[in-house]
C-alpha cells in the first residue's frame, strides 16, 4: 500500500469512526431533552437553550475528526 492510499484510508476511517460517538451522544442528548420538554412543557425554553449548548459541545468532537480527515488528505 503506498502512502497516498494510506492517507485516504486513514481520512475515511477517522471521519467514519469519529462520527460514531457524537452520533450516539447527540441521539441521547436530544432524546433526553425532548423527554424533558414532554414532561414539563413549561420549561421548554430553558431546556432548548441548554440542548443547543450541549449539541454544540458534542458535535465539536465529530468536527475534530473532520479536521483530522482534512489534514490527512490535504496537508499530511
Amino acid at each position, binding site marked *: 500500500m503506498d502512502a497516498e492510499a494510506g492517507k485516504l484510508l486513514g481520512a475515511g476511517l477517522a471521519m467514519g469512526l469519529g462520527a460514531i460517538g457524537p452520533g450516539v451522544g447527540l441521539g441521547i442528548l436530544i432524546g433526553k431533552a425532548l423527554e424533558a420538554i414532554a414532561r414539563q412543557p413549561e420549561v421548554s*425554553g*430553558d431546556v432548548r*437553550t441548554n440542548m*443547543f*449548548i450541549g*449539541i*454544540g*459541545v458534542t*458535535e*465539536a468532537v465529530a*468536527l*475534530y475528526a*473532520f*479536521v483530522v480527515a*482534512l489534514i490527512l488528505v*490535504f496537508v499530511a
Partner: protein
Amino acid sequence: MKRGRLIVVLAAVLLGLVVLLFLPGGEREEFPVAEEFELHPLVEIPKIGPVDLSITKAVVYLWLTTAVIVVVALVIARSLKPRPGRFQQAVEGLYELARSGIVGSVMKSGADTWFPYIGAVFFFVLVSNLMGLLPLPLGEHYQFAYYTATANLNVTLTLALFTFGITHYAGIRANGAKYFANWAPPSAPPVLKQVIWGIHAVSEIFRLISLSVRLFANMLAGHAILGVFFAMVLIFQSYLAAVVLQGGSVLIYLFEIFVAVIQAFIFAILSAVYIGGAIDQEH
C-alpha cells in the same frame, strides 16, 4: 379523475427517468471540490513583511456581510414604526432572540454590558453564514463560485479570540485578582487544587479551539458536501444521476440554511456562557 391524473403524471416522470438513464452523459469535466476553498488574490497588494493584505474572496464576503448588517440596521433604525411591518418584525424577532434568548437566558449579571458584543457576533456570524449560500462571481477567473467567509479558519479563529479575550477581561473586571485563583475551588485540598487549576487552564485553551473549529468545520463541511454532489454528477456521467443529485443538493442546501442559523446561535450562546461563567464564578 384526480387519481387518473396522478397516475399519468407518475408514469410520465418514470418514463422521463428511464429516458434520462439511457441518454449518454456529457464530456468528462473535472470539478475539484477542494479548489473552491483556495483563496486567490482578486486584487493583489504587495506584502508588508509577512502580512499579505491582498483582497481575496473571503475579504469580499466579509465586506459584503458588514455592508448588509450596516445597511439593514440603518434602514431599520431610521424607519422604526410603532406598528411594525414584516421586515421590521423579522429584525425585531432576531434582536429579541439575541437579547433574551441568548444573553438573557444564560448570563446572570453583566448581560447589559456584554450584550453589544454577543449580539454583534450573533448577527455577524448569522449574516456571514447566510451570505455564504449565495454564489458570487468571485472565482479565480471571476466565474461564479460559492464560498463562506466563516469556512475559513482565520475568520473563525479571530472571532473566537475576541470571545477568549473578552471572557478573561470581563472575569478580571468583575472579580479582580481572585479571578485566576477561582479557577480551582478554594475548598479543595492543596495538591488536588493545583491539578484542577491546570485542567481548567487547559480547558480554556480548548474552548478557544473548539469554538473556532466548530464554526469553521461546520461551514466547510456543508459547502464541501454541496460540492461533492456537483462533482458526483460529473463522475457518474448520466442525466439520471444529475437529476437525482441536483434534487439532493437542493435538500442539502435547505439543510445548510438551518445549519447556518444554528451555528450562529451556538457560537453566540457559547460566547455568552463563557463570558457569563467568567463573571459569576462558582465558589
